[in-house]
């Protein structure tokens, strides 16, 4: 598998990044299809075009690019849909970077933030299990243990679901009780955390992220064993 890329892939990567940046789904798919037709493998496309493009988006967002929510949403959707298409064409089951379970906090029915984070993680080759909405603390921890997940990700849009007794705090408690805190990291996000950047500490999470694309960076770092 080529990772640094043949001359063709360099052009494909640039074209793919531009399409994602412009949130043009049709163009992104057209770029990928054309590359496949030219004989570039699905593996090479994922590792040399999709992942580097997401990394570049992450960098742009963390530096100065002021993306709107719609752009985060569309970027995540395009990148994860393209990844799904390419994965179905892989000759062997791909190696994943790690596993994550994600859901919205207990009492919270807002799914958009979670969906964006899932899209970004998928396109970075993270295996994500979506536990849905209104997830109990037990379910978060049980599922994380059953699936060997390295990160539990919780999305909450309101203060009471971010800080409530059935939210991240209860998940932390269970992780401690079961003695798995060194193996499973707790990452949170959603509107209240953006209004109060210190809130993740109050709910005893290991980290938070301001937007979906940055969530990809924070979570993959944990999966790669980095201590933040």
């Amino acid at each position, binding site marked *: 598998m080529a990772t640094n890329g043949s001359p063709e892939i360099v052009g494909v990567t640039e074209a793919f990044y531009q399409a994602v940046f412009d*949130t043009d*789904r049709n163009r992104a798919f057209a770029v990928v299809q054309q590359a496949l037709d030219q004989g570039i493998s699905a593996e090479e496309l994922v590792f040399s075009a999709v992942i580097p493009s997401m990394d570049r988006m992450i960098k742009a967002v963390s530096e100065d690019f002021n993306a*709107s*929510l*719609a*752009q985060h*949403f*569309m970027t995540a959707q395009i990148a994860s849909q393209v990844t799904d298409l390419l994965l179905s064409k892989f000759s062997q089951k791909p190696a994943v970077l790690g596993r994550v379970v994600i859901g919205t906090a207990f*009492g*919270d*029915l*807002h*799914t*958009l933030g979670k*969906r964006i984070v899932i899209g970004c993680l998928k396109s970075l080759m993270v295996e994500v299990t979506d536990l849905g909405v209104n997830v109990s603390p037990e379910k978060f921890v049980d599922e994380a243990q059953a699936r060997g997940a390295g990160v539990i990700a919780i999305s909450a849009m*309101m*203060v*009471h*679901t971010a*800080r*409530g007794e059935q939210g991240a705090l209860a998940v932390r408690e269970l992780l401690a009780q079961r003695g798995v805190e060194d193996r499973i990291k707790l990452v949170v996000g959603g509107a*209240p955390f953006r*209004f*109060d950047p*210190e*809130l993740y500490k*109050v709910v005893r999470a290991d980290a938070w992220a301001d937007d979906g694309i940055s969530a990809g960076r924070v979570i993959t770092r944990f999966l790669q064993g980095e201590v933040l």
Partner: protein
Amino acid sequence: MITGMERLLAAVNGKKSDRVPVFCNLFDQGALELGVSLEEYYQRGDLVAEAQIKMRARYGYDNVWSLFYVGKEAELMGCKEILFAKDGPPNVKDFVVKEFGDIEKLVIPDDITAHPAFEEQAKCLKILKQELGGRYPICAYLTGSMTLPVLLMGMEKWMELLFWGPPELKNLLLEKTSDFFRKEIAAFRSLGADILLYSNPYGSMDVIPENFFHQESMVWMKRDLEPGGMAGVVYYCGMARLNGAIPSVIKELGIGTYYLSPFDDLAQGLELVGPQRLSCGVINDIPLIDWSKEEIRSEVKRMMEIGRRSPRFLFGTGVMPLYIPQENILTMLEAAYEYGRF
């Protein structure tokens, strides 16, 4: 004694009253005030009115609300299930539009005031009007046509339809929600609401890209607002940033009052709104839960120092979370009364 309405009118006219008007948005706190559960509280308009009146009197701020919770608007369009919590606001649980096909079936009631879901709100508004009318401004919350679909189908599905779905279907839904909006604002006006908060996060470039704002959001905002005019209308993006939108909104819609975002630069917001129009500086009320007395006071002071440079300025909050200790609400208000004094 000077009333909230007198303070507000002074600010509207660029005159000084005793202090900057203070709008404090307490909703769920009403249930605590009366010692009932949130679910019971929100079933009854008389309870909501009673709590609004009591809280205003106890804390001394300048406005009251006829809003129960935002999901009420979904109920008026057919939502049958609301999720109540014991420590936070109710939320839409049942989506009226489950699949795109449901959009055609969506019916906007002819007379929303005759809808059973409106009854308790009307009752609340009537009591507020009787008790406080003319003395304290009564606020109503009205979600814009481009944001209403979120309450009907969730934000995820709406984003998909808005950006990638069939344009006819998207426009059909927006026509229906815009019709709903026009009826709703007319109803609240006729029942005597003084302030009409036009809530539209899709009027913020934090939510949608700039070109989309100009090409799409603006068109629907015009359709929503132009028939009834801009009197009493306040531009608000659900606490998302709006400084970038202000010049176009002034030019194309002519709205006179702006409920700024704590994520924007306040001084810049005031400058963009200009001295002829009213700006509301809004405190980031989520950290109020944990801030110390000193932190609260210094933030209010900072905002008032900037705000008082404008002849037309109010001080306001977001949807104050129930988790904010009463003491901290008091600290914020006392600081606002003190640093807002003319």
